[in-house]
């Protein structure tokens, strides 16, 4: 398993004063796109915008609880985003799923992308989260484990299960 070449990583940027508007904004800014992409991957575009805002609201409210020793700010913010996505899916699971299926995160270039999007949409939340973090956001396994708050081996097995599920879902269409 190799890491996606398209990954772009940003190191944690800890503002000395996250209690001010500007300080907090500067602290979140390097990770804002990653948060948006993860929210969009997990819940679709329209729901994802609400999830993104909820995650930022939570981050603002809990900003003093961030502990840099437990991981970089990006992982903490992505974990908040994933948690808000999970809550959003609980609130309206059927609706969220329908939105994801009906509204792929990006306009696919061809039918194979549509199939893949739908297949990913049928993964479990944790599988989808692992796939989103690893393949779409380009996080290394270590950081994916940090966001998901589990062991690296668990991430690897979750990704393996997700790939197996995708193979099964795509089946002959992909071949």
């Amino acid at each position, binding site marked *: 398993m190799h890491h996606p070449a398209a990954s772009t990583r940003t190191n944690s940027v800890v503002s000395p004063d996250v209690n001010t508007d500007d300080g907090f904004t500067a602290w979140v800014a390097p990770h804002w796109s990653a948060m948006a992409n993860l929210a969009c991957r997990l819940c679709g575009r329209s729901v994802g915008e609400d999830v993104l805002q909820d995650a*930022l609201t939570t981050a603002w409210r809990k900003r003093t609880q961030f502990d840099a020793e437990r991981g970089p700010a990006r992982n903490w913010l992505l974990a908040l985003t994933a948690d808000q996505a999970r809550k959003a899916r609980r609130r309206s699971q059927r609706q969220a799923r329908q939105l994801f299926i009906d509204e792929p*995160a990006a306009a696919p270039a061809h039918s194979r992308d549509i199939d893949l999007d739908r297949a990913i949409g049928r993964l479990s939340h944790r599988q989808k989260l692992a796939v989103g973090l690893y393949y*779409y956001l380009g996080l290394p396994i270590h950081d994916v484990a940090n966001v998901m708050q589990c062991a690296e081996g668990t991430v690897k097995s979750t990704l393996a299960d997700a*790939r197996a599920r*995708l193979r099964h879902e795509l089946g002959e269409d*992909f071949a």
Partner: protein
Amino acid sequence: MNPTDIEDLVQLHAQRWTRSQPPPPPLDVAVRNAQLRRRPRIDRLAIAACVIAVLALAAIPVVRTFAQPRSASRPAAPSPQVLAKLTQIARSASAENGGAAVTAEAVHTTYLAAERAVLNGDTGSNPAATTPVWVVQIRGDFTCYSCRGPGRATPTGHVITLIVIAATLQSSDFGLGNQPHDLTSLGNVIPLNP
């Protein structure tokens, strides 16, 4: 399909997807929204506090109603018809029990209070606890002939106690003993003229 194929497919899709993503919403606007979004939480708490306060204020009359002495719930004064009926009930009870009433008095209260005060607990009668009743106490020398039974003496006593349902003026409970009860604990005692 081998594992590499699916991985390549996902990676390729991820690259295309990432490139096609629109820029996220402006962060500064989102931060302002995040700070503003705390207000509804405060508002909800304020609304909840207001609702609790209103309910508490609304409950005060109810609490006062339940907390006030039982005697306060009685009518200011029984009507002449009620007095006449209670007097008739006292006379009938005296006559049926072989005596003549020397004195009789009545007090308005609830069934539960009456049951506790003059009938020593459960009597087997089951009006609701809050049912308004009259307690009628008659003094004299009485013998309960209807209480006779094989192998037991006929009960006698000096005090007949009746519970009369206020709404129907029908007697629901009867007691015969020797010691009068202090009806003033139940409310304003009204003398009858048996």
